[in-house]
């Protein structure tokens, strides 16, 4: 007998092989060498995940219990594949062009992106899928136990082995099912592994069948005799059950999440359906070929009470053929694992996209941008979902105890998932179908399924037998298994009939009564008329003619130079027979990435899609394009603002530059004037000192006179330098004021005597000393300097025969106003604005000053918080000095 250890070793080896195959396929696809992976054969084989452990083991069991009825499970899909080929094609086309990720996504997409609907479908799928996963785990356990019974070591523990199987499958699904963010992308690794498993399970079942017919029964003839002799051959066909089951399996074939995953999401080419339409029924035929012989032989050979679900294993074992049994075990293992992996992947996409992400996004609202880590969150959500779904299946298995017959769980799940059918088919073919209709129909069917099939089937725990017997609250026509008083029906037939018919009626009525939203109407048209505006999706493929169109479009976006460069590089990389690259998927992908750098991802996808025709432009695409345009508009308005800012800055800079040029010009003029004022006295000094040095026989008179000139000019130089330094300090604002208090009168007294001292020119100063008794608090020396300057100016420039300077003072609102007016001819009107400028000398008068006096006065008065101005209309030259009574810091 094969030891359990060997079995576990073979199992592990097989799992390693699956990982290896999946890994290699992913690598090949990534490297672009996996063209054969996208062949119709692989597509057909991947469809055969329809045959789970339930069909592998359960079909024989079903045949042993109920005769030929098991055939209905194969007939449904076969009928769909052969007679409803066009419907499937539409489904695939819609799925590809809308880039749907799951059946929940498809339904939600059709009915105006309704997430409520998506959530309903997701919950339904999880509820239906969980027992189904449990069923697969159970089949593995049961088959293990067959070998364990014969194992002397007794090491086998059921619970832990199931746990490790579930964990391993979760890991596989996570590793190969969530590599990429894009759930719409094909998972070559998973599909290839599933195709391999399909071959293995078919091979195993055929091997067992051939062994039974030729090895045990002794050929076809004796086998037929045995069948005729057994009960199976004589079983009567119950039309109701047959119709129901065929319909149910057909519906489930279309609606099951895992079938949708392999049939629509993983579909690489619509044309593959053409091959699958005959190849898949053929596969099912082969799978069912030896079911009846195995069942008949099993019933004959094995003792009464043996589990017919395990005949596939126990018949070879009973004949001592351990290797065949082990092969058969691997076949069953394959059926279970492939189903679990794909179901987990499909359900996790639905759960993460429609349950986890909306919740996560709503918690992120208001926290600003979420572009960065969304990708990461989606991947984590999908992985956690896989683990959670697997855990759910595991716990369901542990809690249910694995007692129910395999086949019945499968049928219950089928009935549940079939509730999607009205909304799905209606959505594909009836434009009038609305979201409300879908929601109402789905709810009605879903609730009826729970009420009439799921709860009664779970025993007394959730629904008491009194409800089952007499209806809830004793209402007879609400009895779960005899609705509206129709009794005596098979429970399954009863449920399917009522739930699906009421589902459909509710769907139609609610659709007719409700009004679709604009988005719904648009999506409805997209779905129903999908063939009018899309071409067969073959991924991104096209002809060279399309390359030209792509080139033209790319030139418009990137500019002629970069576009040609890009296309040339691509053509060379492809081997370069022509100057244009073949529009291979890899090239188109790179082009899309290149363009999305310029126009945004959504726009780039839509543009390439329009030209290559891989998918029509969906509403989502258009909305994304609109978003991008809005961003561009926003960006351009930002640019406009920036540009306005820039021109404002430029204007300011121009103004500043003009000002600087003026200042520079002023500085040049100033230096030139300073130079002139310095050179003039120096010229006299040099000339006379040379005269005194070089001339013999100068008279004493001459010597004295020339020395006096030199002395005067030296003093003039000193005064000029003092003034310049004074002005410089005042202008730089670094002057330190020496505050003091005194009356205006004494300040004027000192100024008058100081100004008039030591000059020969006479000037009469008239004052009204009574009005000068004003106390002042300011820098008295600086104020005195201003007064001296004004008195000296009058003395120097007053051209009257008898020069008189009148000083008058009065107090006006916190300020002292002092006017200095002489009786001369005054300053010409055109020169008045100039008198306070540096080196301004009116009329070229050479009275000894350098022309800095009034400039200094103005600076001083500004520092003191007052002012000095020319006072016109006084006859002679007149200046007005205003000074605050008390100096305030703020005046500076």
């Amino acid at each position: 007998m094969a030891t359990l250890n060997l079995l576990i070793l073979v199992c592990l080896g097989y799992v390693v092989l699956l990982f290896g195959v999946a890994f290699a396929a992913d690598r090949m696809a990534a490297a672009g060498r996996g063209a054969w992976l996208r062949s119709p054969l692989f597509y057909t084989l991947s469809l055969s995940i329809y045959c789970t452990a339930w069909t592998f083991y359960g079909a024989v069991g079903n045949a042993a219990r109920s005769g030929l009825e098991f055939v209905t499970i194969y007939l449904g899909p076969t009928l769909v594949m052969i007679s409803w080929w066009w419907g499937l094609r539409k489904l695939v086309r819609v799925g590809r062009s809308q880039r749907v990720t799951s059946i929940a996504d498809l339904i939600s997409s059709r009915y105006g992106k309704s997430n409520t609907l998506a959530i309903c479908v997701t919950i339904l799928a999880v509820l239906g899928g969980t027992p189904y996963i449990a069923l697969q785990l159970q089949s593995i356990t049961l088959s293990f136990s067959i070998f364990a019974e014969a194992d002397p070591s007794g090491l086998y523990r059921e619970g832990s082995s199931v746990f490790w199987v579930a964990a391993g499958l979760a890991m596989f699904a996570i590793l190969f099912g969530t590599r990429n963010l894009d759930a719409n992308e094909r998972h070559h690794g998973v599909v290839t592994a599933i195709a391999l498993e399909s071959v293995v399970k078919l091979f195993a079942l055929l091997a067992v069948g051939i062994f039974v017919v030729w090895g045990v029964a002794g050929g076809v003839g004796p086998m037929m005799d045995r069948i005729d002799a057994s009960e199976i051959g004589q079983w009567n066909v119950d039309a109701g059950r047959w119709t129901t089951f065929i319909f149910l399996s057909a519906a489930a074939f279309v609606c099951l999440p895992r079938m949708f995953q392999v049939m629509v999401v993983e579909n690489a080419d619509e044309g593959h359906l053409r091959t699958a339409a005959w190849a898949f029924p053929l596969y099912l035929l082969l799978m069912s070929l030896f079911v009846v012989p195995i069942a008949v032989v099993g019933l004959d050979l094995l003792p009464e009470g043996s589990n017919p679900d395990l005949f596939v294993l126990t018949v070879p074992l009973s004949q001592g053929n351990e290797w065949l049994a082990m092969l058969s075990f691997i076949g069953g293992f394959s059926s279970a694992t492939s189903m679990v992996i794909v179901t987990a992947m499909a359900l996790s996409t639905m759960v993460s996209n429609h349950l986890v992400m909306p919740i996560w996004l709503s918690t992120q609202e208001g926290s600003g941008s979420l572009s960065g880590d969304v990708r990461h969150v989606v991947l984590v959500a999908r992985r956690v979902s896989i683990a959670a779904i697997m855990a759910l299946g595991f716990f369901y298995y542990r809690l249910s105890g694995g007692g129910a017959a395999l086949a019945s769980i499968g049928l219950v799940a089928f009935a549940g998932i079939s509730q999607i059918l009205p909304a799905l088919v209606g959505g594909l073919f009836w434009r009038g179908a609305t979201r409300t209709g879908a929601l109402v129909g789905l709810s009605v069917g879903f609730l009826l399924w729970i009420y009439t099939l799921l709860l009664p089937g779970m025993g007394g725990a959730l629904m008491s037998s009194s409800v089952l017997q007499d209806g809830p609250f004793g209402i007879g026509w609400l009895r779960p298994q005899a609705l509206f008083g129709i009794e005596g029906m098979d429970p399954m037939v009863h449920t399917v009939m009522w739930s699906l018919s009421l589902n459909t009626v509710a769907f139609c009525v609610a659709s007719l009564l409700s009004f679709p939203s604009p988005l719904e109407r648009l999506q409805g048209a997209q779905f129903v008329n999908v063939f009018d505006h899309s071409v067969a999706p073959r991924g991104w493929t096209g002809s060279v003619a399309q390359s030209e169109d792509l080139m033209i479009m790319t030139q418009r976006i990137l500019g002629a130079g970069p576009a040609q460069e890009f296309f040339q590089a691509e053509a060379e990389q492809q081997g370069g027979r022509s100057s244009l690259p073949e529009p291979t998927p890899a090239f188109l992908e790179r082009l899309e990435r290149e363009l999305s750098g310029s126009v945004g991802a959504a726009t780039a996808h839509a543009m390439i899609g329009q030209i290559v025709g891989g998918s029509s432009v969906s509403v989502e695409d258009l909305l994304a394009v609109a978003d991008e345009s809005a961003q561009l508009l926003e960006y351009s308005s930002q640019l406009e603002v920036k540009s306005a800012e820039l021109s404002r800055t430029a204007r300011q800079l121009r103004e500043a530059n003009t000002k600087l040029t003026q200042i520079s010009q002023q500085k040049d003029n100033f230096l030139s004037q300073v130079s002139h004022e310095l050179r003039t006295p120096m010229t006299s000094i040099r000339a006379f000192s040379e005269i005194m040095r070089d001339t013999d026989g100068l008279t004493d008179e001459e010597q004295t006179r020339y020395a006096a000139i030199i002395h005067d000019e030296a003093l003039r130089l000193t005064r000029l330098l003092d003034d310049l330094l004074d002005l410089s300090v005042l202008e730089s604002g670094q002057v330190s004021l020496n505050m003091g208090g005194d009356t205006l009168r004494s300040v004027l007294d000192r100024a008058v005597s100081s100004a008039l001292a030591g000059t020969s020119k006479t000037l009469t100063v008239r004052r009204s000393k009574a009005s000068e008794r004003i106390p002042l608090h300011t820098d008295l020396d600086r104020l005195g300097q201003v007064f001296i300057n004004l008195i000296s100016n009058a003395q120097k420039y007053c051209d009257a025969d008898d020069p008189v300077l009148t000083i008058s003072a009065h107090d006006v609102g916190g300020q002292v106003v002092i006017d200095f007016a002489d009786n001369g001819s005054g300053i010409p009107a055109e020169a008045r604005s100039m008198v306070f400028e540096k080196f301004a000398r009116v009329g070229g008068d050479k009275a000894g000053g350098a022309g800095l006096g009034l400039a200094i006065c103005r600076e001083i008065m500004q520092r003191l918080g007052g002012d000095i101005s020319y006072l016109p209309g006084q006859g002679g030259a007149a200046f007005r000095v205003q000074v605050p009574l008390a100096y305030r810091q703020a005046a500076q």
Partner: protein
Amino acid sequence: MGILSRGGMKHMSRKVLLIEDEPNIAEAIRFLLTREGWQVETHAEGTDAVEVIQGANPDLVILDVMLPGKSGMDILRDLRELDDLRGLPVLMLTARGQLRDREMAESAGVSRFMTKPFSNAEVLTAVRDLHAQATQS
């Protein structure tokens, strides 16, 4: 009178007209040139300088640039417009020693350009040279 009379009188009486508004500088130059045997006339105003020159008919003009009323540059330009004063030697003195001023003076037709402060010897040399050139031609 004209060239003949000027040439004939050259050893007896050489006249220089000094147009300078700084009295001390004017006095120094007058002292220097008088000792050299020049007859020195002075004028301190720019406005009527051209008429004064025409009236004085000097052998040489010493011209300041910064003058009240009219600048030395303008006076020089006006002189060069007049037929009989086109060849008159003009020594220009300025306290603004920038290159730009020298260029302006040269384009206006100055005979010699000097920057203040000058050495007495320089002024004397310049006056002698200019007078020698004028009498040779």
